[in-house]
């Protein structure tokens, strides 16, 4: 909520206080403006011939912030939206304030001192509490390529609880000789990118804003992918408020779905291709994708005209809405839509709507179920739904050592309740097969490593028909 910009205009033979012309803000007159959820102030703690500092301070009103974010409904927010670091940390709100105060400076215009606006000037920037996912090292990586000398210091979470270590804030100081308009645009883009938090108020024109603010420097930035990904990734177009409320009732944080740390994206593709091939081999016409998530496999299978009935289920209503959106479900031709159905369902309850199909797919599903609940899953799939074939895939934990980015002993996804070796998976699968009258065989997914096997393992269960 606070930052300062300082210059001494060394080498320009001008009083440092001419900085005020560049910023279009009179050093003698503090200004204020309303922003979402509060008031922004700009003032000069120091404005002498030698040195001039402009400070931007946000006075955030959390009560107003919640009301602004929620429209008229005053009840449906979570405590996390209410008691949070926004009043203190340099978040996207500060970026918004910068763009409001310094709109003209950001496009590099200054009629009073045009040569100064066009020139690189000595600047010091101080952001005392910058939320920075990735720590001081990432701050360095982000600002150094832009010509800044970076002094980023970690802020301890609580000095009285040293075991907690550092917070996600850094105390950031940048020094460099940079055009003011560029410096402001750097901050405008980097504050939200480093924060990497949900933007409750992100609009649909964010892409345009990024293109505008990043012109001239973003294209050449070595981290440009990460910057644009983070800048745009957190648009919340789906409400999951109810879920967050329930999590909060337990005092549990709602984690952002972290990307899988499985390395190349191609593994997910490979998994889908393998599963689709197995289904074709089975000649399955009526298929349920249990735990379909956002519908990637369903989308793939829909292309196969031999499949007459396709059901995607997920326990998350939100995931199903995503899946429908991804596949443009509502705009599909009637014939296509008749083949496809999305149902909210759960693997720990028997669902009679799924009974008697040709095949059920549980792709990367079982590892999201607590081991004590697996018998309920087997019952609902192998007894209640009892399809002719079941395809189960799950990570092969032996392969984890091949993922460089994965720390030893860590799971590939924060929600994984377990990851099995090939032996562990086969023990489970053969037990289930025996119990419910299926024959089971195992197949690799992805390149098979001579030592640790494939990255993903697949079990194919076929129902054994009892001679009448």
């Amino acid at each position: 909520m606070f930052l300062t910009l300082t210059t001494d205009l060394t080498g320009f033979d001008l009083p440092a206080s001419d900085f005020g012309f560049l910023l279009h803000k009179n050093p003698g007159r503090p200004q204020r403006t309303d922003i979402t959820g509060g008031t922004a102030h700009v003032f000069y703690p120091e404005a002498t011939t030698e040195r001039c500092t402009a400070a931007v301070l946000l006075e955030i009103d959390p009560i107003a912030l919640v009301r602004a974010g929620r429209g008229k409904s005053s009840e449906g927010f979570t405590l996390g939206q209410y008691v949070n670091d926004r009043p203190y940390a340099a978040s996207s709100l500060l970026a918004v304030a910068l763009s409001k105060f310094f709109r003209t400076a950001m496009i590099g215009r200054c009629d009073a001192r045009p040569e100064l606006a066009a020139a690189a000037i000595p600047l010091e920037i101080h952001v005392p509490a910058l939320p920075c996912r990735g720590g001081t090292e990432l701050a360095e990586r982000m600002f150094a390529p832009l010509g800044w000398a970076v002094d980023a210091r970690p802020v301890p979470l609580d000095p009285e609880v040293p075991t907690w270590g550092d917070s996600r804030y850094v105390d950031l100081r940048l020094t460099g000789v940079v055009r003011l308009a560029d410096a402001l645009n750097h901050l405008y883009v980097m504050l939200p990118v480093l924060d990497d938090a949900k933007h409750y108020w992100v609009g649909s024109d964010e892409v345009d804003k990024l293109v505008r603010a990043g012109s001239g420097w973003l294209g050449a930035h070595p981290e440009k992918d990460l910057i644009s990904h983070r800048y745009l990734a957190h648009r919340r177009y789906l409400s999951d408020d109810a879920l967050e409320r329930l999590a909060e009732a337990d005092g549990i944080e709602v984690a952002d779905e972290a990307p899988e740390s499985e390395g190349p994206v191609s593994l997910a593709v490979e998994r889908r291709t393998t599963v689709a091939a197995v289904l074709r081999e089975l000649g399955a016409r009526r298929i349920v994708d249990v735990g379909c998530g956002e519908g990637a496999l369903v989308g793939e299978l829909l292309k196969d005209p031999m499949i007459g009935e396709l059901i995607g289920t997920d326990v998350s209503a939100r995931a199903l809405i995503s899946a429908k959106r991804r596949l443009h479900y509502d705009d599909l031709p009637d014939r296509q839509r008749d083949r496809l159905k999305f149902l909210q369902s759960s693997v720990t309850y028997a669902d009679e709507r799924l009974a008697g199909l040709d095949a059920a797919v549980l792709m990367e599903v079982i590892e999201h179920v607590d081991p004590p609940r697996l018998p309920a899953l087997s019952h609902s799939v192998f007894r209640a739904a009892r399809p002719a074939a079941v395809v189960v895939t799950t990570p092969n934990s032996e392969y984890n050592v091949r993922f460089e980015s994965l720390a030893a002993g860590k799971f590939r996804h924060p929600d994984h309740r377990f990851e099995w070796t090939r032996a562990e998976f086969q023990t489970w699968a053969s037990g289930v097969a025996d119990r419910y009258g299926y024959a089971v065989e195992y197949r690799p997914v992805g390149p098979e490593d001579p030592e640790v096997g494939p990255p993903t393992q697949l079990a194919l269960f076929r129902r054994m028909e009892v001679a009448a």
Partner: protein
Amino acid sequence: MKIDVPALSLVILVGVSGSGKSTFARKHFKATEVISSDFCRGLVSDDENDQAATKDAFEVLHFIAAKRLAAGRLTVIDATNVQPEARRELVALAREYDVLPVAIVLDPPERVAVERNEQRADRQFGSKVVTRQLGQLKRGLRSLKREGFRKVHVLSSVEEIDAVSIERTRLFNDLTDVSGPFDIVGDIHGCLPELEQLLTNLGYTLTRDAAGRLVDAAHPSRRAIFVGDLVDRGPDSPGVLRLVMGMVAAGNAYCVPGNHEDKLLRSLQGKNVKVSHGLETTLAQLEDETPEFRAEVATFIDGLISHYVFDEGKLVVSHAGLVERMHGRASGRVRSFCLYGETTGETDEFGLPVRYPWANEYRGRAMVVYGHTPTPEPEWINNTICLDTGAVFGGSLTALRYPERELVQVKAAKEYYAPAKPLHVASAPEREPDVLELTDVTGRRVIETSSHGRLSVRAEQAGAALEVMSRFAIDPRFLLYLPPTMSPVATSKLPGLLEHPLQAFETYQGVGVTDLVCEEKHMGSRAVVLLTRDDDVALKRFGLAGRGAIHTRTGRSFFDPALTDELLSRLRAVAVEAGLFEELDTSWLLFDAELLPWSAKAEDLLRNQYAAVGAAARTSLPAATAALSSAVAAGLDVGELLATMEQRAVNAGRFTEAYRRYCWPTNGLDGVRLAPFQVLASEGATYQNRPHAWHLGIADRMVAAGPDVITPTRRLFVGPDGWDEGVAWWEELTGAGGEGMVVKPALNLVRTGKGLAQPGLKVRGPEYLRLIYGPDYTEPANFERLRDRNLGHKRSLALREYALGLESLERAARGEPLWRIHECVFAVLALESEPVDPRL
């Protein structure tokens, strides 16, 4: 003339246009019982005589009839039904719902019908139509009975039609007016000595004939019900038959037939049956009896009704069980289910048919008692129980006392017959998890609670709860209860305070509750603890191995399985030491507690949310105030802003102090403490009517038994003149950094003129509220806005969740089926997804 119509049947009127069907129907049946094709034509086309709408009209007619029959309501079809195809569809409908189809044919002389049609302005289709219909009717009349009608009544004159009266007769299986008590006896299979012993143990007086043979048994206040399979395999099938036949004839017993009786009857009737599975034994034994006795046996079996519905529909007895949709119905299908059950078409490794596990899916209200499938121990599954414990295979003969639900068993003297598969593997090798179905929890639901009437859950709420329950909750067999949300007190009018005890005292006084208890609000997480007395209780009582559970208010386990078991065994030792299992006469115990510290569960939240706020404030505010001070020194007009920021720094410091009280280091279970404050349930009992003094007394005994793991709950009882003392106590608690207190009616569950009283109101301390309302909530500008709190929704929610919680406890204590408990538990979670101001 009198026509008997079974109370549940599909009555099909047959007659040409103008034969008087509608008049007849109006005269003898309720208007809502009659569905007429003319009316349905009108529904779909605005014209009762629009023949073009006939197809749609009949679809509507069939749809309505199906709904009525599914609900068990007598239904009358008022259409011409002169064509066999039309009747065939209706007979099929009756079969589908297992009700009896009855035809009443109105066949007055042709001219009567023609005249009637001529008198009606809206029916100008001439006499040809009537003549054609009459032809169709006459052709079909002779074969009506063969079309599958149970009864066909033909009325062939105006006088006859006018003179008829309709009498509704009860179905033979309808004994809803007989309420017991009963002793229901499992499969006997000729084990007369065991039966004799069992009846004696049950208190029956036996009667013998001159030859010393048992011919009757009577109890002064009870009657026996036999679930069938009296005969075959065992030592004395004729003796068992003689006794049971005597008891039934004397009105001392009821009996339903088993598949073995059915086969015996066919054999006695000279039909070609394969003599096996012990029938050979019975037939040989019957050889020694008189032909008269054999004839009596045949008559007896022939007269048996395949199932009975007793006690206002609360008890159903049949040999092989019965799905709910067939209760009280009559059809060949029902009879076949009763005798043989349903099979999957598969056979197991012993070559026996695999039986369809209908009981797993049973969701009916009636208790279903049956036999047929030998099991080592009788086991309740969804309010059904199989009493066949394989007496003839050397197991035991079992009786169920109804309504007591007690089992009485007599061990078999020996193995009379070798079973096809060993008795101990008779049931599945490993018990199936009690099957919960998606339809037990999803969609809009209405739950009847004993304390707060019918409560409903919306479909979207259930959807949100489904995800949380499926992804995070513990096994539903250990999840008997979720605690309700609690409302805070009404907002205080005192300066600088949002909450104050006076509002709690006043609110309760307002509904006439003046004896209150104030309980310290622990600085921890709400925890529900399911405790078992020893290690085999959980498997036996809940069907799940383990020692119990310690879960959060949304059903997650606090700890991993190893730590959970360790803490449970410490708590078990405490409960044993305190003598709780003996005192409450139970093998398990459910109680409500607070688990401390809060950081044990919520460390991530504390770190990432609360501590982060502190860290950001600590870093940014000094920089901001320093800059503002310089600006003030330079003569800028930012003094007010400086003062604001300085105050914010002070508030952030207090906020940090507030959260720090909730953290202390734990390592495994070291440092973890539990503060029980209420006993929720035990076998057969719930405790919402015991005063809090009793509950806290139990808690104190647990503290005494395990001071290293149990933390006491401080409390103060406040009467009508103790308000000052209550306020002072709260000030002392919160002044010392405490979270606050909860004010409850001392008597516990209290009903007032306006219904249930709130079970508790929380009064939180001003510093704790900083964590909820933000560091700066005490600033006057914020404070005035925050005073405006809407408590109505929260209160209503708190009461509804409280009632659902009590309902789940009562169902659990009574040993009701899992789905009945789970639906309440699930409903609490669903209501918790409601958008409510989270600061309340």
